[in-house]
């Protein structure tokens, strides 16, 4: 699973990043780099991390995800974690990891709706 295989798609002012199923540590680190670069490049306000294929989310992977969310936030963007598998959610919780205040959604569709709703709210302010 190489870093190049991470797909980053721009979609209606949002970025959609699909996380590979079983990435090695280098790919996980590369993911963070790519996401931050893309956020800067597209001046995007929202990020959807699609983790629906991820089978194992250990503490290293989880920490990188949480860090990425925090960094994106510092750059003025909102992140939604989408599609975590039920067994992964059970395991992550039991492992004792908290994903902080990271927004979550059942799937990519709902994640996009969520970010769009946030954006319109933001406009009103």
């Amino acid at each position, binding site marked *: 699973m190489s870093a190049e295989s991470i797909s980053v798609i721009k979609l209606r002012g949002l970025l959609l990043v699909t996380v590979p199923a079983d990435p090695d540590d280098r790919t996980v680190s590369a993911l963070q780099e790519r996401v931050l670069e893309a956020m800067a490049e597209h001046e995007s306000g929202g990020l959807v991390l699609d983790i629906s294929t991820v089978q194992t989310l250990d503490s290293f992977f989880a920490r990188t995800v949480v860090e990425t969310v925090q960094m994106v936030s510092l750059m003025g963007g909102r992140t939604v974690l*989408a599609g975590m*598998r*039920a067994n*992964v*959610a059970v395991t992550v*919780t039991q492992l004792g990891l908290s994903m902080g205040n990271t927004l*979550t*959604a*059942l*799937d990519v569709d709902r994640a996009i709706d969520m970010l769009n709703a946030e954006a319109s709210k933001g406009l009103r302010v």
Partner: protein
Amino acid sequence: MRREPKATSKSKATVLGSEDSFRMLVEGVTDYAIVMLDPEGHVVSWNPGAERIKGYTRDEIVGKHFSCFYPPEAIKRGVPEKELKAAIKHGRFEDEGWRVRKDGKQFWASVVISALRDKAGKLRGFAKVTRELTERRRNEEQIRILNEQQQTILDASPTMIFYKDRENRFIRVNESFARANGRSKEEMEGKTCWDIYPRETADNYWQDDKEVMSTGQPKLDIVERMETQKGTMYVQSDKIPYRDLEGNVIGVIGFTLDITGRKQAEERIQQQSREIMELSTPVMQVWQGVVVAPLIGSLDSQRTQQFMERLLDRIVETNSPVALVDIMGVPTVDTQTAQHLIETVAAVRLLGAQVVLTGVRPAIAQTLVHLGIDLSGIITRSSLSAGLLVAFEVLNLQVVSKSASR
């Protein structure tokens, strides 16, 4: 014994001295009947032992044919003649069998008949030595009957029973045991465990046997699998040391029960309790995007764990952003279950859904506060219907009364 009479009968003059001493010896013997017969089988000499055992005095019997010592049916079959012929042919004949006393009573006798020949090889007669073995015979018979009775009892027992020696060899097995192994008793006896079972299984059994033999203590309630020609059985065995009369351990005796049926029943019960558990924690979709999970009964760790997995699976399956977990039917909540509930809420949140905890009765609310459990991050409502309203709010739905809308 065989040569000496031969020598005496042959050269009377030269060995007269030894003949005298021999006669004294024979006269002194009372445990054996020592009788000389002529070549035709007539009695020529008679010792006190013969008198004691057979009841005739010397005067009564000398000159009579020795067939009078045999039971009538043996005489009919020509046994006395055959025995003499055998002695002539082989020099010596041995037999055990019933013989008759003067009073008609029979006794069990061990008989040795030796042919006596002179130097030229001419038959001069026979020496017949008889020992009375009725007592021994009776004991043997007794033991045989006891053994048979014991085997009958063993074979009637539904318990599988076996005796093994120190070499792991079956010395004796009962019918149940042989049948369970799909073999006959004869096929099993004399064989070792290794001849009968797969290596690993046999080694396992042998391990227990060695323990029983070395400690001299019984080993009870050994539950294990038994691989037989007929398939796998679950068995429960008691093994006790097998001792000889002096108390030395010479093997083990095993008593084995087939518990396959019980084991299967246990497994069925486990299976049923799993099914009941699933039934008792249903997760139902009540609206597009809303699942409801009423928890009923006390929550142990295992049950909550399974509930959590089912709830998460159903949320993903039905793509529901809201899950109402109703604990109205839960009698008590302890720290542990509260912890599981908090974990469930956290896991559901990771999926991208929300839990609304409903049916929090006053008693439970009190307990939770007293236990210092922080549920502040969790949306709670006292009733399921109040929870449903929260769900609709999350889904951006509004409940409007029909009359109001008109």
